[in-house]
């Protein structure tokens, strides 16, 4: 179901065009990955979604209605360039930021205590932000982004600066939020995490949208009909008798047996590979090689 519809957004600055006629939809309850090389226009798009900047042209529908100032309270935004008041106390600052998002002081305190306990940073309540480690500050930043329980969350490079443990924690929390029904958009260069948590993908390059769809569909679309098969024995004979449609693109000698990467014609089914090798040798592993998001990214952007 459509939650946000971005329609023909164009935005230009005095010396360059940041977005040119960009349209796509963000599905309700899904995690959408907003991808694109540096300077493609992602941050501008995110700022337009946050109503920090206004588009020159086009409009955004939020849950069916044009995006309105009051929607700010339905949006949680974790910017790429983020920070906190260094001299302010942690609790005080979190309350302030929560209240700016429209929570009452009482609500803010209650919810913050819940999250502080969950993230095990309760003891930091009365410390100054500058005394916190970077990871702690990131956690605090995450909490204040989601404290007002928004329907729509925007994470701009959420994993930068996190250690693997905290990255994992963050991923779990993002998936948790998704489970609770939040719609999430993540802008990141970390393709591995895109594959892990994103349902949908939007790719922007040079101010234009060049790719949109479900992660699964996109992978299918970009697949090269490559298969990987690991065999216990392999000899010249097997290779020579192999059907001519099979093309070996890579051959890896393994401690026991061999790993082959095969390309087959589009119309051919995977079963035919198995069908041939099953009589020739013991099959240890067989799987289709789908392109990684990293490869798709590089291929599309080039």
């Amino acid at each position, binding site marked *: 179901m459509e939650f946000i519809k971005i329609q023909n957004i164009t935005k230009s600055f005095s010396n360059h065009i940041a977005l040119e006629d960009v349209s796509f939809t963000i599905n309700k309850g899904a995690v959408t990955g907003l991808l694109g090389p540096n300077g493609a226009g992602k941050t501008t798009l995110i700022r337009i979604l946050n109503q920090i900047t206004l588009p020159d042209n086009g409009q955004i529908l939020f849950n069916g209605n044009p995006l309105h100032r009051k929607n700010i309270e339905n949006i949680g935004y974790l910017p790429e*360039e983020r920070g906190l*008041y260094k001299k302010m106390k942690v609790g005080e600052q979190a309350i302030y930021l929560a209240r700016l*998002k429209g929570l009452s002081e009482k609500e803010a305190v209650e919810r913050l205590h819940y999250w502080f306990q969950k993230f095990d940073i309760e003891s930091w309540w009365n410390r100054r932000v500058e005394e916190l480690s970077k990871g702690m500050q990131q956690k605090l930043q995450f909490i204040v982004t989601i404290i007002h329980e928004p329907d729509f969350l925007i994470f701009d490079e959420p994993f930068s600066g996190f250690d693997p443990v905290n990255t994992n924690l963050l991923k779990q929390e993002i998936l948790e939020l998704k489970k609770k029904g939040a719609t999430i958009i993540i802008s990141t260069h970390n393709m591995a995490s895109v594959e892990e948590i994103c349902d949908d993908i939007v790719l922007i390059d040079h101010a234009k949208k060049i790719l949109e769809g479900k992660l699964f569909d996109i992978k299918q679309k970009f697949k090269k009909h490559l298969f990987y098969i690991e065999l216990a024995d392999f000899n010249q004979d097997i290779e020579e008798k192999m059907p001519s449609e099979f093309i070996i693109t890579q051959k890896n000698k393994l401690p026991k047996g061999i790993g082959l990467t095969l390309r087959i014609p589009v119309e051919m089914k995977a079963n035919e590979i198995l069908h041939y090798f099953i009589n020739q040798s013991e099959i240890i592993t067989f799987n289709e090689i789908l392109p990684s998001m990293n490869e798709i990214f590089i291929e599309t952007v080039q």
Partner: protein
Amino acid sequence: MSKTLLIISREYMTRIKKKSFILMTILGPILIAALIVLPLYISKTSEKEMHILVVDENDYFINKFHDTKKLTFSYLSGDIDDLKKSCIEGKYDAVLHILPGIQSNRSNLYFHEEPSLSLRPNLEEQMDKIIFDKTLIDSFNINPTLFEDIKTNSKAMITSLQIDESGNEQQRFTEINRIIGIICGFLIYMFIFMFASQVLRGVLEEKTNRIVEVLISSVKPMQLMLGKIVGVAMVGLTQFALWVVLTLALLGIIQISSPNFFGGEATSISANANPEAIISSIDSTGMLQETNIMNEINNFYSFSFSTLLFSFIFFFLMGYLLYASLFAAVGSAVDNETDSQQFIMPITIPLLLTIVLIMPMAEDPNGPLAWWLSMIPLTSPIAMLIRIPSGVPLWELITSMTILVLFFFFSAWIAAKIYRTGILMYGKKITYRDLFKWIRYS
């Protein structure tokens, strides 16, 4: 609570809780009180009562020195070597030995404890007068009593009276007015600069901290800028109010703990401020009428104190708002405080210029220089405050205030445009051309 109010209260509370604010609030009144009290205290203690023995070899000055509260004279003749020892014994504080021969005017002053700096010039002046008078009387054979009469009756005294539109006359103490004007002008300058810089640093802090993007996804940039400017203004007013209250309290405590300090010496405050006026009135009447002068000073205050206070608050607020909005724009456009200098300089030149010209303006508060500077919005907060104690026609005051308010709206409009674009610009050295582009663009 509206979000702007929330921002204002954060700006206010974090600043009020700062150590530097508390320190300034405590030190300020102590400094001001010290500035008022110390000169008095020093003049009181340094001029202790002096008893001076005059040994005149010519019998020329006997009983001629003028006794005052602080200075009494005794006259003896005898061997100077014996007599001068009396200052070691403490019988006299000093021994003035006038050597034979009046024309040579040679004398020695013996003392054990060093006397105040003013003693020697004081004695010399008295001796000069005595010689001058006696020479006149002797050479023209004037009757000494007639001579004294002539002297007392030939003193001139000028009273400054200002006539307002309705023809009421008001005695003015121009020197006091000037000093009050200078102090007010300087205070305004200090306050504007101090608090406008706080706005600049606050904006810069939010920008370099990168918290600004989080904030403006919740509130409009305009609310953020306005909240900061108003919050800091309230800090300024709080500090000012605390200073006034604490200074008065401190002076009150001093008065209670030593009742004579101001009571008996009330005139010394005015004497410090306006020595000539006091001295001339002492001379002319031969007797100091303390109560009269205090009344006149009170009259002066009751006449324009409220105007002065109102104007001070108005010009501080408006001047601050004007400069703070411009400073906020600069803070949003640059990445660090060093870069801000090139934009701050042109903005503050009018302020600095007014401070440099403070003396000429105080000299002639209604002259063209002071008049024009009190109308130009970037300089009027200081210049007008210099003029107000000397009396400014109401229409001029209103004109100046109107110009200032209008100019503030204009500068705030420009500042908002720069601010909106500036706070999201990172890592780019901003030039004046960029600023103009932002103003035109948005």
